[in-house]
């Protein structure tokens, strides 16, 4: 009866990033949530201390606590969260420009990632997307992630080990543009984030399983890279080639000011300034969300915030390679 099996949530062999223990154990990777803008990833180890904006927090205090708990550091409160690929993307040590969650999320969709998928990626970079892919293809898929820089692959290899993802991942030092991918005729999807994707596309076609076919996604900041990549994809037999651009906008909740002319004549437009959080006590400040809701005297409304936001990361070109079926 598969039902029983489906809900066992606590197995020895499940990896750290995939397991759902209630309480934090030594050796776990946890996310220390300081503020919305500051999250840290640490491996809990007796004797160590985590230093951040709100002072010091000894790891001893973390062990045995429940995930989601609020802990006092020396100069404020923090929350201890479970790692997830989204929180990892925000907390990871950056060695390169990284792919953020909005792009990672779309890329997983475009690659049809699911448990069991075999995916090739280049470059590894700081491993932001690598983690997202690995989490989505666990427990029986595999990720081959390629980079020309050995320090990067070594680092991500170590992270995968710490996060219990090493069995489903293989970091490779290899220039996919010149030397192709680590595997041929075997993967379900290839992701490219390289300066000259058109050089790698015929290798991508070789990496994809000939019997199953597969998906290709290429990320490029410049339209000229996209143009060359599209030509190369077409030449290599990819179909349904489409280029999209995803641009997220983030909002903030503020209390809404709605005056009559008489109010305005009397009081002027004492518009709630975005920077007037100075009066906030530290307790309020510890998470960035409480601003408007501490004193909900007025109705909440949303504004685009911050005023300046990312307006472009890259174009995503995706395509399908059909299986090499015999003529019937």
């Amino acid at each position, binding site marked *: 009866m598969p039902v029983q099996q*489906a809900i066992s949530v606590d197995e020895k062999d499940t990896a750290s990033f995939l397991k759902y223990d209630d309480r934090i154990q030594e050796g776990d990777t946890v996310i220390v949530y300081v503020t919305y803008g500051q999250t840290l990833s640490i491996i809990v180890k007796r004797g160590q201390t985590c230093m951040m904006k709100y002072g010091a927090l000894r790891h001893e205090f973390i062990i045995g606590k429940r995930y989601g708990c609020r802990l006092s550091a020396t100069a404020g409160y923090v929350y201890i969260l479970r790692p997830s690929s*989204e929180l990892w993307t925000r907390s990871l040590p950056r060695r390169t420009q990284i792919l953020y969650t909005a792009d990672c999320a779309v890329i997983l969709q475009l690659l049809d990632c699911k*448990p069991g998928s075999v995916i090739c990626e280049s470059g590894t970079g700081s491993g932001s997307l690598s983690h997202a892919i690995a989490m989505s293809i666990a427990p029986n898929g595999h990720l081959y992630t390629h980079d020309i820089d050995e320090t990067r692959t070594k680092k991500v290899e170590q992270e995968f080990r710490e996060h219990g993802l090493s069995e489903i991942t293989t970091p490779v030092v290899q220039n996919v543009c010149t030397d192709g991918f680590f595997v041929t005729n075997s993967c379900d999807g290839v992701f490219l984030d390289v300066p000259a994707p058109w050089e790698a596309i015929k290798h991508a076609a070789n990496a994809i399983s000939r019997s199953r076919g597969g998906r290709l996604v290429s990320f490029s900041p410049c339209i000229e890279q996209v143009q060359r990549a*599209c030509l190369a994809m077409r030449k290599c037999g990819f179909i349904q080639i489409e280029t999209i651009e995803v641009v997220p906008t983030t909002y903030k909740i503020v209390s809404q000011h709605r005056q009559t002319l008489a109010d305005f004549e009397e009081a002027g437009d004492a518009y709630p300034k975005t920077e007037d959080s100075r009066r906030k006590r530290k307790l309020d400040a510890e998470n960035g969300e*409480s601003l408007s809701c501490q004193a909900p005297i007025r109705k909440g409304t949303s504004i685009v915030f911050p005023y300046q936001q990312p307006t472009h990361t890259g174009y995503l070109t995706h395509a399908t390679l059909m299986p090499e*079926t015999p003529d019937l």
Partner: protein
Amino acid sequence: MDQKVIENGEYLIVQKVDGEQIRVMRFTPKQKILIEKLKFDADNAFGKPYGLFEIVGGDCIPMTAQKLRDEIEEQDAALSVMSKKEDLTTGDSVDSSCEEKPSERVVIAPSALKLEPEQKRQKLVQDEVLEMKKQGTTGNELVAKLVEGSASFNTRTTYSQSKYIKRKSKKHSDRVLILRPTIRLLAKSYYMKDPDRIAMLRNDQLGLILQMAGIHHSKNVIVFEQNLGLITSAIIERLGGKGACIHIHRGAIAQSIPCVHSMNYDEQTLSTFLPVRIGCVLAGKQLPYDNQRKNGTDEEDLDVRAADVKELTAEEEEALVRRNDRLAKEKLAMDLIENGQTHSLIIGSRTIDPINVLEQFYHKLAPASTIVIYSPHLNVLVESYEWLVKNYAINLNITNQMCRVLQVLPDRTHPLMSQHIAGGHILSAIKVLSAENSS
């Protein structure tokens, strides 16, 4: 696990190459498949591998990737002759020919040429086209002929050329993709066909929901959605046969979830799908089955139930087995909820006030759980945001996102002139413990 060939009774994605529709349909014997004026017999597809087909006289002839590549090479050769440019050194490797600059292929024509009416330019008359079609000329050949026949083709701007080719291709292309459904294709199909019924949920936003909720193998997730099962189905796929997708539904059985049915999930994968009746949620306990109650009258389940009807004699027994299975799964799901073993709550709202759903489930989620709410209406999320802040949630974030398709063609690159743009907003948060509960 994955099948290799098209089977009788399967749900399939059918799409014309460069067509506008993506259709999800179940292939049954003797069925006529009709898509954007192209017609073929389902029978001709059975036993053949999924992929690209050329439809000639109602038959489906598979196209290989190699065949496609050969064809493209031919076309390119023809084009380079057409553009009257000296051939580039043809001995080049594939690599360097990929690097060919876009601008070398087609030059933007000088401006300001008077355009004559289309009829005058087009020498191939309608009758001829019909005749050729009857003789089994393929779409691509036809387009080539039409382009030849258009006397002023070379003097028009490439912008109009592109439009011209596109228009012609659309009209005559006889190629069709027959694919196993994927979440991506289902999402696109419903978004294009009937965005209202999935609350305008786009594939890119669906991806964001999954990522913000952190859905992966073996997780226990509660989902209430009004998106035709799209979110539910995506969760089921990402769980990969382990974990729980607790699906809160109206009525006696889960209804209006065509996106779950049409994914052809195997038994193991479907085992994580645990439907729970709203009635039970509101009652706070599992209720007995109420036979009087109408079960699912929505269109989506009609074919499922139609299939049931056929075996009317065995029906009672089977129904009992199915019901017991449903009840067992529901019990399991409700226990997981009550025992605080769920780690994510996803609400895909179309008409529901998310706060009402939060009130039912939020407090039962394990601490550090993720909450993701989708709604086409920002104001609904603003209120949910305020509710969450008051109930110990952190890491709150509201986003929406633009998703735009670009036309990438040599010298004619620009975002599509018109696209579906409707979409929703996503609120995400993480539940934490209050100070008192933290120690």
